[in-house]
């Protein structure tokens, strides 16, 4: 049986009744899984889906997780193998209970994730199987950390989360993915973020999956007038990592800033698609991606910006850079910019290359070893994306995660 047939069969065996789950399954049945023939999935490692033994959710965990230190000032929600864990959540279980309450109110009529017929199809799997779909309503200010740990038990690790920011609300959302379900199980995340007028969301994602992890996420963001969405994403783990993000700037002067970096080595495949839709006047997008592929790894990033006729005065910045650091390594960058109106300011660039020999010689001429010099230059390559993470402890963790892929880089000193 194909992966799609198994997904649908296992979903049937679970006898789900929630309308949102059933609608997601119906959509997946109608549109199927993406393939490498789909333009936006050319570089994704979809074959790993065929290796997944079971798409049913992993059972409730029985192990105690090793958690990273809590972030000062943040509430925390911990998920183990896709199951929210009230006992590890901060400040207490009340937050989790309130999220579940949100589900009951919202999900019956919730629309499907982004472009269910297109790039959002993997998100449908999370919607079908996530054991505890959650909805978070934020008014005022909130700092929330989501820690998602895969322990390796059989079955999928799913998260299906909606976040709705009220007008003027501010949210610092941190999302950490740790561990691995193993090479025959997947982690699959569906996030739906809605920013009302004048709201602000800083969203930091650290994909620190174990080297054998299969990880897929789907992120749909809608930003209303004068809303401000900032995404910082560090992908530094996983045998297969695929991120699919779509940001819809639907209100006047809505803004998005994306700072993403990816490091991969060995046989790893790290692929990302960032789509930004400018739909209203005065909207702004600013995307920066830095990726390093070492040894025989493959890093890919597609950045698709579409400016609608209604988006007069839009401003678009896009900078994609890739570094190839191995004879068999590959970096594929695909900037795409479609402008359907006048009065748009746009600047974009994409370059892929190897380490600059002049820079390398400069460091060697100061006595640094070739290994240290190369590591330092790779670090420098990532610094711009990394430095966009405002929280020092988080920046440090992100740096250490990225540095773990950069040989013997002395990250602890560099991060001081």
């Amino acid at each position: 049986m194909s992966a799609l047939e198994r997904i649908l069969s296992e979903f049937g065996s679970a006898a789900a009744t929630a309308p949102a789950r059933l609608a997601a399954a119906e959509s997946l049945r109608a549109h199927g899984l993406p393939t490498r023939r789909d333009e936006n999935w050319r570089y994704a490692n979809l074959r790993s889906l065929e290796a997944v033994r079971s798409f049913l959710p992993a059972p409730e965990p029985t192990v105690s997780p090793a958690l990273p230190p809590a972030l000062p000032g943040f509430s925390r929600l911990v998920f183990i193998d896709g199951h929210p864990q009230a006992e590890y959540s901060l400040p207490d279980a009340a937050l989790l209970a309130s999220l579940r309450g949100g589900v009951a109110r919202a999900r019956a009529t919730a629309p499907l994730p982004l472009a269910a017929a297109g790039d959002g199809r993997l998100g449908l799997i999370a919607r079908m199987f996530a054991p505890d779909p959650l909805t978070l309503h934020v008014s005022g200010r909130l700092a929330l950390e989501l820690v998602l740990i895969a322990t390796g038990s059989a079955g999928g690790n799913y998260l299906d989360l909606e976040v709705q920011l009220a007008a003027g609300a501010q949210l610092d959302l941190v999302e950490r993915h740790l561990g691995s379900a193993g090479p025959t199980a997947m982690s699959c995340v569906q996030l739906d973020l809605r920013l009302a007028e004048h709201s602000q969301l800083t969203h930091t994602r650290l994909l620190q999956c174990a080297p054998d992890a299969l990880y897929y996420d789907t992120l749909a963001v809608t930003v209303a007038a004068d809303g401000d969405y900032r995404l910082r994403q560090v992908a530094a783990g996983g045998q297969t990592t695929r991120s699919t993000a779509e940001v819809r700037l639907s209100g006047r002067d809505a803004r998005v800033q994306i700072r993403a970096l990816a490091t991969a080595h060995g046989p790893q495949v790290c692929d990302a698609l960032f789509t930004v839709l400018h739909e209203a006047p005065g909207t702004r997008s600013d995307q920066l991606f830095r990726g390093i592929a070492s040894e025989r790894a493959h890093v890919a990033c597609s950045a698709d910006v579409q400016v609608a006729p209604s988006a007069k005065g839009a401003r678009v910045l896009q900078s994609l850079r890739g570094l190839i650091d191995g004879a068999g390594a590959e970096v594929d960058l695909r900037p795409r910019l479609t402008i359907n109106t006048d009065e748009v300011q746009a600047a974009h660039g994409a370059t892929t290359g190897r380490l600059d020999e002049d820079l390398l010689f400069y460091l060697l001429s100061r006595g640094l070893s070739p290994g240290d010099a190369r590591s330092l230059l790779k670090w420098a390559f990532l610094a711009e994306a990394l430095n966009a993470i405002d929280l020092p402890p988080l920046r440090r963790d992100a740096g250490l995660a990225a540095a773990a892929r950069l040989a013997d880089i002395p990250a602890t000193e560099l991060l001081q």
Partner: protein
Amino acid sequence: MSVPLLQIHDLSASAGGTPVLHGVSLEVNAGEVHAIMGPNGSGKSTLAHVLAGRPGYLITGGTVRFDGADLLALPAEERARAGLFLGFQYPVEIPGVSNAYMLKAALNARRRHLGEQDIDAFDFLNLVRGRMRTMHIDDALLTRGVNEGFSGGEKKRNEILQMLVLEPRLALLDETDSGLDIDALKIVGQGINSLRAADRAVVVITHYQRLLDYVVPDQVHVLARGRIVRSGDRDLAVELERRGYDWLLEAAAASA
């Protein structure tokens, strides 16, 4: 009689298949300052980079001994650790790596080579800040990326700062004076002079005599068409300033 710190004998090298150096011979003793002058394209920078071990050059003949060892057998980083410093004509920018980090890594690489322990963080800051004062460099530049956003003059002063921190046995300064205004030239000159010591040497590569007003050389050499065609004392630099290089090129051509 002591062995010269640097002994270049009949050195020939090519770049991209084109011969650039045609049998350069030069000896520099510890405690001396030498100036190498010459017109554009004469091979001055090539000589400096060949000595520092830059890839891309093919040594086609000759030998170079540094402190008694075969310099050409060493990779670039080992030449640096052994005490050879190249001051770049065009220092590169490395955003994301702070000056402080690079400088400390470089200093510790040299200290380890000398059998010393890594420098303590507090001692390092004291050392660097003292040298920064000598070079009139603002403390804030220490935490900036290497040469990131520096003006041309700041980059050159930063090169000299690195030299002062690393305290090399031999400094090769490739047109460190180019692009400097008078004040910066004076500061750079003071920096170079502060390194002068009985166990060190400096080779200044320059087009012009003006740096030599501040850094008085023991010997001046003229490199032309890949050869040293004339050597003399500082008066030679003054004469070159007055007469240019043509007369030497003609003389060299006549004797070739």
